[in-house]
């Protein structure tokens, strides 16, 4: 069981603590002790697939339709493939997925795994972006919110040039904003160069 989750984690985007969330939630939710090995394994694997979809979604800063298709297509393909495999009588997986999908407790467990796995990540990410932002966060926020960029502070002579560069950058970004605009590739680079 842990081998399966660990193996999957190495190939995906799930962090060790999230793998632990998947394992413990699966064990506790199915602790009514009537589950077979294949059932429990499939619940844990489903949890990994769900978590991966949400982790990749959260890590993506720019969505074009290929991203959306690939993230959720992977999710849908997982269920399609497993339902197909569950229809093959000679396999150990026969009818496992049909049974799981018809149980309310399966879907409730999936929701629990996603909430426990993603909640802390979302909270920490938001906190860091809001209260400890780095330059990339700020530039992304400027681009996406089109916020006011007025700078009124006095500057030391040694950093005036940096400030001027930034002012040019931001001014240009307002004039040349487009759907695919990349803030670090401003025209002002060419004009200054």
């Amino acid at each position, binding site marked *: 069981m842990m081998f399966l989750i660990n193996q999957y984690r190495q190939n995906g985007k799930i962090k060790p603590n999230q793998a632990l969330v998947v394992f413990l939630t699966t064990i506790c*939710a199915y602790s009514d002790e009537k*589950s077979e*090995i294949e059932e429990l394994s499939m619940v844990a694997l489903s949890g990994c697939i769900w978590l991966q979809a949400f982790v990749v979604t959260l890590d993506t800063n720019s969505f074009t339709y290929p991203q959306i298709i690939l993230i959720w297509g992977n999710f849908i393909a997982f269920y399609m493939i497993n339902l197909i495999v569950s229809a093959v009588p000679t396999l150990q997986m026969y009818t496992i997925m049909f049974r799981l999908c018809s149980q309310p407790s399966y879907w409730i467990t999936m929701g629990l795994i996603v*909430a426990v796995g993603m909640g802390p990540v979302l909270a920490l*990410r938001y906190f860091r972006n809001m209260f400890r932002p780095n330059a990339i966060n*700020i530039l992304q*926020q400027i681009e996406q919110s089109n916020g006011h960029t007025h700078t009124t*502070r006095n500057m030391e002579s040694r950093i005036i040039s940096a400030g001027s560069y*930034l002012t040019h950058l931001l001014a240009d970004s307002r004039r040349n904003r487009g759907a695919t605009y990349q803030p670090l590739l401003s025209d002002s680079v060419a004009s200054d160069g």
Partner: protein
Amino acid sequence: MCLEIDESFSSGFFLCFFFLSPADSKFTQQELPAWKPLYTPGIVIGAFSLIGIIFIPIGLVSIAASQEVVELVDKYDGECVTANDKVGFIQDTKTDKACTRTITVPKPMKGPIQVYYQLENFYQNHRRYVKSRSDKQLRSKEFSSVIKTCDPEAISEGGAPIVPCGLIAWSLFNDTFTFSVNKKTVQVNKKNIAWSSDRTIKFGSDVFPENFQKGGLIGGGQLNEKLPLSEQEDLIVWMRTAALPTFRKLYGRIETDIMASDEITVVIQNNYNTYSFGGTKALVLSTTSWIGGKNNFIGFAYVAIGTISFLIALAFVGLNMVKPRTLGDPSYLSWNKENPDYVQ
């Protein structure tokens, strides 16, 4: 253009493909329209509040469904052995192993009531145990000699194949339970306790037990050699190997209701040896609900997550009140701070 290239076919094909691709599509020029989400306070606080609003009701409903289930557990392995030498008692074929237990029903139990046996410290998930079976043999008579994976219970002492072979079948659970309620006998329905997919496909209707439990070591229950495997539902249930060392398996169903304060009398044939390996045995009577059996974990976990999410949302609201931050304010950039670190 492709015809002018003096190359081998494969590289020529590659170059043709390269030249034919549309050089100015939006995809290749990275100009596809893009949505760039921004985690504003409103969005994040709203998300956590929404999680709370969704999760707490689901949790409460799950807890209610779980509380609705009436479950009676009777551990009998200790009391049902009258000798000091438990292993000797259970292995002696001549001893009377009947044992009578009495259970008083605390709450009304609505039929059908599931009857399970529960074993602890029994590792049906052990790799060599799990592998000790032959699905081909179970499925069809023509594969009765496909026993390669069944060691050490593959052939009988005479050399003939054992059907069904393997350790899983060999260790079939064989305690039996007879019920009466208020001194009136109650029938246990042992039909349809196995998955229908197992009964119709995985276990053949033309496969009959042969040479089963004929060796020197008896691991568990006998099988009726006149019944095909597809009708031996106790065996089918047992061969669905459990994932955890503590597990329950369905023994049968009591179709009638049982009233509160009724007295259930169970006569148990205590045949199965869990004493050699320190296991325990229990009889479980349980009603069911849409959430399955009695399982409080899901409900309480949902309520906890919902509550924590609300608290996180409140914390972020408080943080934004006490210490409001402007999104994308360039004064937060290190070189715009009034006292930059590198100037000190």
